[in-house]
């Protein structure tokens, strides 16, 4: 019987594409023969805006790249500026920075697990995930006033010190989370329908993953034992004791389980930080802003109005929850950067997707795509 392939468009407006992403699939019945990804529907020109704003004014734009976990984006840009200008950061500020970044890792993985299960048809996990996320967002709100776009990490330290009562509430959150993560495992890991949909689907080998530029938990699900926090450590990670989570199989189930393990490791890191938090200043006094005492004329800022780092260029990479996030900043001695380039993990993780879904059914595309964990603000910038 004569058949021919047809073109199916999974359009920019779709409930399961986590944003505005478009697939052009060449289908032979239910099987995918070829997959072309079209991005750029959320391209907002962040890199050009980086040349039009000063160094301090660009920090809120970095929040809007990976908007689910915004602290690591802030931190990568601020660390690049600090390396360029040679600014030192006090110890307490580094501890606070790692605390907020690890908490962000936990809520990012909760959202990923929830939306993967929602795309596969089960709506319980996302309800649980967002319930935990609300508790963490209330912690962040007491800290810096915003739920999602924090603008908290600045060159020289952090914006405000931890408020009173933050550490007891954080301890409660960790205790709560330890009980709930057992719930998630019992609900999902043994579920036959879930296992049939993700086991041995979308396999990628270690060499292919490295060659295609995949980084982060998706790469560690294929057996590459590499975590920037351990190999090229930054901030206070040399003093912390944790392990990089890895699985060998390379299928979607392995990538899901790596993230579940990472939530546990992050909680372990948070407990160490709470025990070892030093006293001291939260910001380098030359660059900090005095706390607002409430009176309208009492706010004074030590941050220099004209902040000009020396001319040069720097590339700084960190381990964001989704992969390797890098900022390239070039300065020519004026108040505005000459060039800002963002190396985003989601953009590079998508290069491997057409190879992974060739020969699978269309329903498997959604399962594989959900485990790579992308967010469109990061892809399109």
């Amino acid at each position, binding site marked *: 019987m004569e058949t021919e392939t047809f073109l199916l*468009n999974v359009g920019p407006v779709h409930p399961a594409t986590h944003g505005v992403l478009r697939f052009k699939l060449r289908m032979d019945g239910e099987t995918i023969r070829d997959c072309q990804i079209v*991005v*750029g529907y959320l*391209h907002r*020109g962040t*890199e*050009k805006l980086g040349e039009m704003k000063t160094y301090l004014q660009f920090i809120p734009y970095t929040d809007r790249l990976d908007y689910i976990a915004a602290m690591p984006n802030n931190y990568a840009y601020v660390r690049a500026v600090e*390396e*360029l200008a040679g600014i030192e950061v006090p110890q307490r500020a580094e501890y606070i920075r790692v605390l907020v970044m690890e908490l962000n890792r936990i809520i990012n993985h909760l959202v990923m697990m929830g939306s993967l299960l929602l795309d596969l048809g089960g709506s319980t996990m996302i309800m649980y995930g967002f319930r935990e996320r609300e508790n963490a967002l209330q912690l962040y709100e007491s800290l810096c006033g915003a739920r999602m776009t924090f603008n908290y990490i600045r060159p020289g330290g952090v914006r405000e010190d931890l408020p009173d009562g933050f550490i007891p509430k954080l301890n409660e959150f960790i205790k709560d989370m330890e009980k709930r993560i057992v719930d998630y495992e019992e609900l999902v890991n043994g579920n036959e329908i879930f296992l049939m949909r993700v086991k041995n689907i979308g396999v990628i080998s270690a060499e292919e993953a*490295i*060659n*295609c*530029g995949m*980084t982060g938990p998706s790469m560690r699900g294929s057996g*590459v034992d*590499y975590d920037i926090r351990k*190999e*090229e450590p930054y901030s206070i990670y040399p003093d912390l004791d944790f392990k990089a989570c890895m699985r060998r199989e390379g299928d979607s189930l392995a990538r899901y389980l790596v993230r579940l393990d990472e939530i546990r490791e992050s909680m372990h890191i948070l407990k160490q930080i709470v025990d070892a938090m030093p006293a001291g200043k939260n910001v380098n006094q030359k660059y900090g802003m005095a706390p607002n005492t409430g009176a309208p004329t009492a706010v004074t800022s030590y941050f220099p109005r004209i902040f000009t780092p020396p001319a*040069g*260029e*720097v*590339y700084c*990479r960190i381990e964001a929850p989704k992969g*390797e996030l*890098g900022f*390239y900043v*070039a300065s020519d001695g004026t108040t505005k950067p*000459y*060039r800002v*380039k963002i*190396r985003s993990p989601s*953009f*590079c993780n*998508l*290069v*491997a997707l057409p190879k992974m879904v060739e020969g699978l059914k269309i329903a498997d595309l959604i399962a594989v795509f959900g485990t790579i964990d992308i967010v469109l603000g990061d892809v*399109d*910038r």
Partner: protein
Amino acid sequence: MNSAEELKYLLPASVISVGVQTNKPLAVIKKEDILQVAEKVKEMGFDNLSVITGVDREDRIEVIYNFFSYKKKQNLVLKAILDRTSPSIDSVVSFWKVADWLERETYDLVGIKFNGHPNLKRILLPEGWMGHPLRKDYDMSIEQFVTVGEDGEDIVSTDGSNLLRGE
């Protein structure tokens, strides 16, 4: 010796100078020899191509490659200088597959042509967009609008009358 000096030792004719990019070894190379250099760099164990950046300086365009080696835990930065009127360089997509999308993005925003790339089209901006936004002489005052044609593909023009509501 660090990795840039090792590269200069192995390929002395292609490396113009050796320096440092804040804390990573930097090697400035000739743009005609990029394929040879890429082969040597891959042999040296640099299997992770992090990012390809295009920078528009006033009199030249620079393209910068950042590499990392998982086995040896070392960094390497390559820089090639291209002329501003028609910047072009060979594509390294046969060595690292991630260069596929990174080079498309650099072509889209800075305007560097990569010879030998299988599919050099715009990726973040729609197909008919005029100009390369990250050049310093891009004119921000011209507003371009996008409409959708019959087959679902984008049509770009400076006239937005069939998209915007009249007041």
